[in-house]
């Protein structure tokens, strides 16, 4: 199972596509869209009329299987509700491929947050996202496209992106990206979980979550910590939990550890966080680090 945001597999495939004009965009998108259609994906393309016309010409009858909503119908990465809306694209029995285009007016910092959120906490979703950006976008926004996409869609197919930088969620970290570290809690074992829950509830309330939303966020982080504790010695887990908040937007927690424990093998297609997902906007298990991340939205 591919858990990262890179190649095609069970997990997220997050592609950038840099273009100069509609022909260029279509040439880069066609190989990925054909692959998606051949694989039985739901395909959604939110693009201008000229691009849609060229795609219809390029794909022929297969284009009938593509949904073409107006571009405004797709939430932009910079929008506060972006991370929440991504989940709506997910189908239980098949992949979904979505092509969207960067508007020039997006604030780069917010955009980078949305894109990094995808990479960090939606790595398990069966999605292919093609984020298209004109090469004449403002330089700082273009920089986001180059840095936030692990792979690129090109006329010769899906290729690695040498400029990609994985989101740094642990210290040292671009704190503004995930919000300031509100709490950093050490968890030695299950006996420390009550203190962790108290911290998360406190930060969640300060971030603007209320009622059952706080309870859900607390439960999701608690379960992420239980998963991490059980991977090591339950009495000496040595976990570090960072709780970050962007008031009014998100609550983000990363459970790092246990250290020095080999990554679990043989998980196959098992979703280790299936029980957590109903209670948060996104959760991502990264056994290689190891770390478990949970994102809740206000």
């Amino acid at each position: 199972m591919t858990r990262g945001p890179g190649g095609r597999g069970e997990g997220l495939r997050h592609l950038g596509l840099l273009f100069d004009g509609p022909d260029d965009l279509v040439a880069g998108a066609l190989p990925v869209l054909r692959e998606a259609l051949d694989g039985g994906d739901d395909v959604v393309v939110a693009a201008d009329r000229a691009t849609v016309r060229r795609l219809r010409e390029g794909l022929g009858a297969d284009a009938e299987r593509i949904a073409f909503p107006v571009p405004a119908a797709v939430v932009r990465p910079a929008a506060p509700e972006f991370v929440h809306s991504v989940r709506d694209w997910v189908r239980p029995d098949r992949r979904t491929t979505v092509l969207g285009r960067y508007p020039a007016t997006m604030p780069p910092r917010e955009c980078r947050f949305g894109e990094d959120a995808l990479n960090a906490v939606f790595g398990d979703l069966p999605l292919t996202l093609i984020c298209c950006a004109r090469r004449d976008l403002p330089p700082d926004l273009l920089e986001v496209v180059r840095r936030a996409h692990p792979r690129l869609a090109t006329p010769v197919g899906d290729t690695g992106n040498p400029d990609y930088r994985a989101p740094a969620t642990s210290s040292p970290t671009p704190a503004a990206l995930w919000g300031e570290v509100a709490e950093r809690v050490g968890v030695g074992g299950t006996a420390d979980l009550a203190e962790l829950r108290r911290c998360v509830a406190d930060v969640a309330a300060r971030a603007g979550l209320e009622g059952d939303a706080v309870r859900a966020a607390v439960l999701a982080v608690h379960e992420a910590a239980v998963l991490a504790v059980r991977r090591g010695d339950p009495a000496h887990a040595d976990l570090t939990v960072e709780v970050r908040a962007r008031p009014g937007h998100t609550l983000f927690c990363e459970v790092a550890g246990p250290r020095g424990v080999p990554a679990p093998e043989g998980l196959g297609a098992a979703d280790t966080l299936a029980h957590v997902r109903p209670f948060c906007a996104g959760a991502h298990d990264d056994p290689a680090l190891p770390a478990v991340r949970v994102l809740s939205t206000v």
Partner: protein
Amino acid sequence: MTSLLPARPAFGAPQSRHTLLVADAVDQGRRGASTWVEQELSLGSKVFYKGWVPAGQRADQHWITGPAGPRGARDALVTGQLEFLDLPTVVERSGATAGGVLELYADEVERALGDLWPTVAMTQESPELPMADHPDLVAEYARWEAGFEDLTRRLPVRMLCQLCVAAENETAVWETVAVHHGDVVDGFWSAARDDGHWAPSGDLDAHVARRFGAAVHGAMRAARDRADGPDLHLDLSGVDFMDVACADILMLAARSAPLDQHLVLHGASRFLRRLFDAVGRPASVYQSEDAP
């Protein structure tokens, strides 16, 4: 950290009670027992304490009379308000049989009441019974705990059974909590039985999931023997937090129950109901009509 025992008013303390105090470690258990003994001494109860004395030490060198013990314990030992018996002597006198244990306790209660003490408080440290190696001991233990229950029902006796998880094997922990499901105090959670409802409260999480599972098992088992059974009516209005492990335990207990036994949920919050649905609520779990 919350108190190991819920604070109780000096006046209006229940005349009788049979409580299990669970502690993860020895020092944690001692803090809880010390608080309880101190309270009983201040209430004017006759206190019987049964504990382990380290090899080579006398009864009056037990921790209960030292700096970690309750205030006034040493004086109470001198005046006779507090009586100490070491557990090897208890085993010797009772033969470690249910009949022997109950006779020993009943004699002490009778003697205290005969001396005109208004109430009797009895507590014993974790007994370290080898239940895993001697399955017949499980049944014997259940019989004497049932006898304790009867004693506290008939007479003004408050009994505190101490369980130190670090000192007992898994079988002993499981059976002890199951038998005491009606009145358990275990760190951040506790459970009580009242008016036909079994009411766990506090924080139920992975740390205590196994003990909570034992209590659920005990409550289900007891409900089958009750006149108003076999359904278990569960009052969840006092639950502050429940995680997936504990929710799973409840749902699994319902699934594995006999066909005619159901779990009836009272006072479950909307979020708890959502949690039960997420882990898979079987048809044998009903929601009562008094849901908030």
